[in-house]
């Protein structure tokens, strides 16, 4: 089992989610993070002066998938999240040591 952590642009999130749903991966957790990367940020204005803001809102999608589906899911996310301009984000993958579904008490691969 693998956990996929994708950091993407907020405005791409809907599209990614729909694509994952179409693939059959409904389970995920989403949170708002602020990202700081190669992209040197946008500039904002405060009290009449411009500032460079180098930390921008991103959406973090976390989903756990069976090992075999990992590649497919990553590919989908990368495809849908890409705009080709700086700030598109990253996808990281981690090994999951164990997993439980709370409602049923099931463990391991049965949670899917």
């Amino acid at each position: 089992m693998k956990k996929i952590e994708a950091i993407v642009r907020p405005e791409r999130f809907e599209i990614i989610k729909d694509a994952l749903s179409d693939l059959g991966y409904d389970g995920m957790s989403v949170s708002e993070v602020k990202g700081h990367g190669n992209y040197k940020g946008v500039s904002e204005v405060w009290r009449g002066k411009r500032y460079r803001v180098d930390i921008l809102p991103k959406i973090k999608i976390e989903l756990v998938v069976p090992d075999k589906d990992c590649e497919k899911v990553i590919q989908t996310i990368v495809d849908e999240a890409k705009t080709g301009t700086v700030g598109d984000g990253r996808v990281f993958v981690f090994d999951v040591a164990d997993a439980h579904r709370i409602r049923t008490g099931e463990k391991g691969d049965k949670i899917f």
Partner: protein
Amino acid sequence: MVGYLYNILKRKHILSVVIFVMFLICFGAKTSWASDPTGEHTFALDFRGVDMSESFSWVLLTGFTILFMQVGFIFLGGFLQAKNVLSYMTHCFLATTLGALIYLAAGFAFMFGGFEFLGRHLGGGNSFIGWSGFLLLGEAYDVRTVMLFLFQAVVATFIGSIIAGAVAERMKLSAYVISFFFIYTVIYPLYGHWIWGEGWLFNLPFGVGVRDFAGSGVVHAIGGSIAFVGAYFLGPRIGKYKEDGTPGFIPGHNVGYMILGTVLLAFGWLGYDAGSTLAAGDLRASVVAANTFIAGAMGAVTVLYYSYLKTGAADIGEACNGFLAGLVAISASCAYVAPWAAVSIGFLGGVVYVTSVWFVERKLKVDDPLGAVSVHGANGLWGLLSIGVFADGTYGGVSGLITGNGGQLLSQFIACITAIAWAGGLGCLMYFVLKITIGIRVSRRVELTGLDVNLHGTPCYRFEAAGPAFGPEPE
């Protein structure tokens, strides 16, 4: 800094400064003392004087509450997404400031030239257009005329705020600003002149001629018509309609703001409608105020109950629009009807609102984020008509259907048609020209990431515990 300022101005805007300075000079030069700018001759310690000074207090204080209604309009931004709220609020802010200044420069003169107010006649004008009182110079520098200006200027600011609700979340600021110059000098003042400036609509030969006590037609129907055209030309927000044409879900970010704004508007509306007597000695003001309150409350309860029947939830946001719908509907007729009729007008205002929302959103597929078209447009028209139906003949000789009199309804109907044709037609022209020249809609990227941070340089809200880190950009 001063040098910097100078440079900027010199570089690209030296012309505007020159023009402005020339204005100042010509202002000074043209100022005349022909009228009564201090009120010394207008006031005297006699009955007319005391009555006059009472009217001043009354009109000024109610006028202030009208300005205050802009706070209510701004609060309605709670119905929009958090990322676009500053954009909407700026639209309202511009209506309150720039709109009023344009109205000062020219709109007021076109609207009220030739009008008589509290016994003072204001310069030239015919039944189609006025032409007196530009910039309150010359003989318009008179306490009564200036008071009329103040009251009418704050009323005029509403037009911009009504439109803002329909074009929200996707309109270019530049196009919005430019449209003001046309709206505040032509579309609004001329129609206003025809009714409030006692022009041709006011003097129609059916019934007593068109009546519109506090602006269902002049303000709301006109504003709502322009708003509709604007929303139509802009097209719907991204995500508003799915591919199959069913409406999508774009919820607002703060429903509480909507409630606050609505009750706040209700307060101002009482002042607005009652103050529209423009004379403290007209005691009908109490009936006007009560009718306004009753119709608004009835509209709110109607829509709340309907939403509960239809969805199972007490949709308080829609109920707020129902409140506003009732208030718009009664604005024209508040002085001419009895309280029981206000109940009916408010109830029907709620019905008109939900029907219009359904029609505009589902059938016409026009995206109106705040419901401005249904609240102000549809109910503005219904408000105009309601006089022709419910006026009971007690006030101003206006008698509607319930007294067995159809003429008034005909007049009111003509006013409706004229409002739609005039504001709709000129609105189309205006937005069309803007669209093919500078463009009226922001880019897809701006719309997706939010108008606030792109056009105004900052999001509205920052609740983070730790501020992000920054470095100032080299200028």
